[in-house]
């Protein structure tokens, strides 16, 4: 399904959080946040450090449980699902610290992410080895195509921990595509990345949304937000304080006070 990388992803359900709150020992990290993320568009989350942006991602991804509120995907309820279940429903996450599998090669990092592989159950490598091997070949081809897509084709056999930070980000995004994520949660995709790679990352994001993916990203770099985002939410002190079109929001007084401090 990923072989043809130019194919559009259709029927992406809407991801929505409703009155979502999370308290840590009485302190709100996310407080009564309600957002419906427009499918097949790029939404940016901006705001100062500690505003609750990453916590919101952790809540959506199932890594922490909300104190109250709900997380919905289309008509389905994600609120109590486990992280791996949420990932399988097509919500992929790029971590701020990337989290590639350091000892695995770049290619292996991607191949492992394909869902439902024959050979993942421990008896299959013994009793269905032929079938397992047969399925592996097209998977490797798809993985190589994905590597090419993210401009890492020449690094296929490099151990992931030896890639640069920016290359690891590209790899992590390719991994999300391999798991067939339709909604991508990207935590600071542009930070810590070499300027040359930054262009690749930004280019990749716009190509992905052209294909019909939904992208939600956290970003501090305002020019990246202005260039990519279709819609922006500003979080400050655990709440949504402003939202709208990037131009309007960035020039809004509330945003400037909350975020830019100017």
């Amino acid at each position: 399904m990923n072989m043809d990388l130019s194919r559009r992803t259709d029927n992406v359900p809407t991801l929505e959080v409703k009155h979502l709150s999370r308290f840590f020992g009485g302190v709100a990290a996310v407080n009564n946040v309600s957002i419906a993320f427009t499918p097949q568009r790029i939404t940016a989350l901006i705001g100062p450090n500690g505003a609750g942006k990453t916590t919101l991602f952790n809540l959506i991804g199932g890594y922490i449980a909300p104190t109250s509120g709900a997380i919905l995907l289309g008509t389905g309820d994600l609120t109590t699902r486990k992280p791996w279940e949420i990932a399988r429903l097509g919500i992929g996450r790029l971590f701020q610290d990337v989290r590639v599998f350091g000892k695995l090669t770049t290619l292996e990092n991607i191949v492992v992410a394909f869902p439902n592989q024959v050979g993942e159950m421990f008896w299959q490598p013994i009793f269905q080895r032929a079938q397992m091997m047969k399925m592996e070949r097209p998977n490797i081809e798809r993985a190589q195509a994905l590597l090419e897509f993210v401009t890492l084709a020449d690094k296929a056999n490099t151990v992931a921990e030896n890639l640069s930070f920016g290359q690891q980000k590209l790899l992590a995004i390719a991994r999300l595509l391999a798991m067939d994520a339709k909604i991508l949660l990207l935590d600071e995709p542009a930070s810590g990345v070499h300027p040359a790679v930054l262009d690749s990352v930004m280019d990749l994001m716009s190509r992905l949304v052209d294909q019909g993916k939904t992208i939600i990203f956290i970003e501090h770099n305002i020019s990246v937000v202005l260039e990519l985002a279709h819609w922006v939410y500003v979080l400050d002190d655990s709440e949504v304080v402003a939202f709208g079109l990037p131009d309007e929001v960035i020039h809004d007084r509330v945003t400037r006070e909350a975020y830019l401090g100017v």
Partner: protein
Amino acid sequence: MNYLLHILVMIGIYLILTQSLNLVMGYTGLLSVCHAAFYGIGAYASTLLMTSWGVNFFVALIASIVISMLLSFVVSIPTLRLRGDYFVLGTLGFQAIIFGIMYNWISFTRGPYGIPGIPSPSLFGFVFDSPSSYVSLTTAFALLTVGFVYLITSSQFGRVLKTIREDEIASQAIGKDPLFFKTTSFALGAGVAAIAGSLYAGYMRYIDPTSFTIAESLFLITILAIGGSGNIKGPIVGTVILVVLPEVLRFLQIPDTVAPNIRMMLYALALILLVIYRPRGLAGEYGFE
């Protein structure tokens, strides 16, 4: 000659133990300090089935695998949900409890008196009671184990285990259920360790709890830390070195009263130096980095 055969039998048994621990520790990144407990469970389960119920060795062996795997869930299901060191503590507790039961439930296990008179394994009338026949038995099982661990790790299953070892959160993020894979890996390790226990009982024809202590669990970890883990050859290198080394020391005529202590100090020194300077061990791929 018999002496050499004895060493070969012990290498076979320890290969089974270390390769099974390799699955848990080297591939999945779980530090289990109760591997000797599963070794003991295998030995006691087979022995009791053979001596009390007259079950054939090979049937008892299979039963002991099942029992050991079922008991592994007692530790893994509750503790694997928690952070890493809680699993270490849980396995430590399990090790101490299993040893306590083997040692103290005298009406069931004969406790410190041990169980003598264990029958030698027999298959279709052939009895494995000579050292040479036993070498073929343990070698066959060791090869089966190495083959089994190789097959299941050189696969999609093995690849998922490695992602859990590398970064469990990222593994969840690509849609793998770590609890399922960790529980499976731990159960398989426990089942294979039971094979080693059964073979040990059938070979020595006498068992007591002192073979299955926490010190034995730590010794198995030492073998993997020295030889290396996360691939097939690391545990083989470690096992051969650590099983043969005592014999080398004996050859050097170090008196028996101090030999065990000197041996353990050498192990300890190797362990410390390797964990600092070469965490992957002599031939391994992974070392808790």
